[in-house]
């Protein structure tokens, strides 16, 4: 366990120093700023637009961080052969994989936290600018803590994406891993359409196949409750718990797969 923690901390240190991260965070912050400008132009609806944009930006930037660091994490160590000296230390291969995952998860958490903080600052500022009459027509207050539920699900989604990227990176090149991870992400968002495929096709086998794929593919759409929280619609706590359980089981399976692949392979 200690070993996993040390590997994770080194990943965190290295990714914080890799300036790619800073630029992404800066970019996200800029985007939130831009959404504020848009808000200035569209009186009344502005707070909703900013919430939509802000949450989407957190999800997208988190996605890019998860994929672009995730695909390189293991691959880079193998390719540059830094793994040679590391694995000659008292560390098991599964500890290496878990440490890498935990490190990237930590990096993501810190980044999402920073983006969320910036987001709430913008919203709090909006609140001070709005008139009482305007506030009265908002479906929810500007700096609504209820939105943290959407952020929490975004975090779960990102943890799942990270596990997918890490899984692919244990045996394929970054380019392929990125393509596969993004592919799964897109497929996972439009997954729901597969469930009711029989409506569109005649063939029973095609429908069963589609249903099968639906259950195997990660169901990313389930983590998207942005619209609900922005419009202050109810989100049952059991839904959040189920989504969390789903993500955790999926992540556990992916990490197990990554460990199995990684433990058997030769380092060239």
């Amino acid at each position: 366990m200690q070993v996993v923690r040390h590997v994770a901390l080194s990943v965190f240190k290295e990714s914080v120093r890799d300036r790619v991260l800073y630029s992404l965070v800066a970019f996200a912050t800029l985007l939130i700023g831009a959404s504020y400008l848009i808000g200035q132009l569209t009186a009344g609806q502005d707070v909703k637009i900013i919430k939509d944009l802000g949450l989407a930006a957190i999800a997208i930037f988190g996605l890019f961080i998860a994929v672009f660091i995730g695909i390189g994490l293991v691959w880079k160590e193998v390719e540059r052969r830094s793994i040679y000296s590391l694995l000659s230390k008292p560390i098991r291969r599964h500890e290496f994989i878990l440490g890498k995952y935990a490190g990237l998860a930590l990096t993501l958490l810190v980044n999402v936290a920073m983006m969320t903080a910036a987001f709430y600052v913008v919203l709090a500022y909006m609140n001070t600018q709005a008139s009482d009459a305007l506030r009265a027509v908002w479906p929810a207050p500007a700096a609504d803590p209820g939105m943290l539920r959407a952020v929490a699900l975004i975090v779960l989604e990102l943890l799942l994406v990270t596990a997918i990227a890490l899984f692919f990176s244990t045996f394929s090149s970054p380019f392929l891993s990125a393509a596969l991870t993004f592919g799964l992400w897109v497929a996972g968002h439009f997954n729901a359409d597969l469930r009711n495929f029989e409506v569109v096709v005649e063939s029973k086998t095609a429908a069963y196949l589609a249903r099968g794929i639906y259950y195997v593919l990660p169901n990313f759409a389930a983590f998207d409750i942005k619209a609900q929280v922005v419009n202050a619609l109810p989100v049952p706590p059991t839904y959040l718990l189920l989504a969390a359980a789903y993500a955790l089981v999926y992540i556990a399976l992916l990490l197990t797969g990554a460990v199995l692949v990684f433990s058997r392979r030769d380092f060239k």
Partner: protein
Amino acid sequence: MDAIRTEALTKHYRVGFWRPRPYVALDALTLEVRQGEVFGFLGPNGAGKTTTLKLLMQLIYPTSGRAEILGRPVGDVAVRRRIGYLPENPYFYDYLTAEELLDYFASLFGYAAAERRRRVASLLDEVGIGAERRLQLRKFSKGMLQRVGIAQAILNDPEVVFFDEPMSGLDPLGRREVRQLILRLRDRGGTVFFSSHVLSDAETLCSRVAILAEGRLVASGHLSNLLAFQVRGWELVVTGLTEAALERATTLGHIARATPLGAQHYALELPITVAPDGVLSELTACGARLVSLTPVRETLEDYFVRQVADAPRERGLGTGT
């Protein structure tokens, strides 16, 4: 208990994308290295030295055969606490400093922070990295990375150290420092197993060597006892040698070849069958004077060339000789 023991250790790689076929990188290597030895693992490029070390570190898995370190199968985490490994052309993390890297590796051994600081500082002193220790590793030259690599290999006061080409990338001074370091490790009772493609690295250091060519062990033992490196003759350089004296010695079969270096000044090759002192006194009796007498040995490089020329073979499966 031996420090290192391999039994018929074999590694095949599959090469070729469309029609993969096995390539024998290491062919049934059986080797024993005793504790406290400095053992040279020699062979030309591509002989299979790095492959062997990677098998011992379980960075790759053998096709067949077994390997043990300190009496335990390779890959045993408890054994990892007692060994150190310098990879060939080591590379680490761009964004960590030398200090941070060593601290990170030390943490994997479970040392507390104060202990880590102490070890890291003294190690960096030992391998001669001064103020650069606070620099990120991406700014390090090859030679400096090699030094960091050596430092991380001896971080845990290992009982057995594996060095893959420890001298590569170092200047003559650096090579001498590494040589001294290896002897210090030996004096502390450690075992050092190092690979090299340069014979002179081994000559002054090793108690025993193994010589690998084309994936096969071709010789092992003490360097001076290895048949290939026995004295094969003598080179005698003399001045004041008359043509008549030269001709007589040649007809007696005492001189295999004479190369004139100047007036009455010759380099003479004596066959191993004659005693050089006898020939020398015979020539000095005729008025010649000795300039130098040196034994002729085959170099590791010559030896390799001959090995490869003697037994040319395809390193595929089934086509070996």
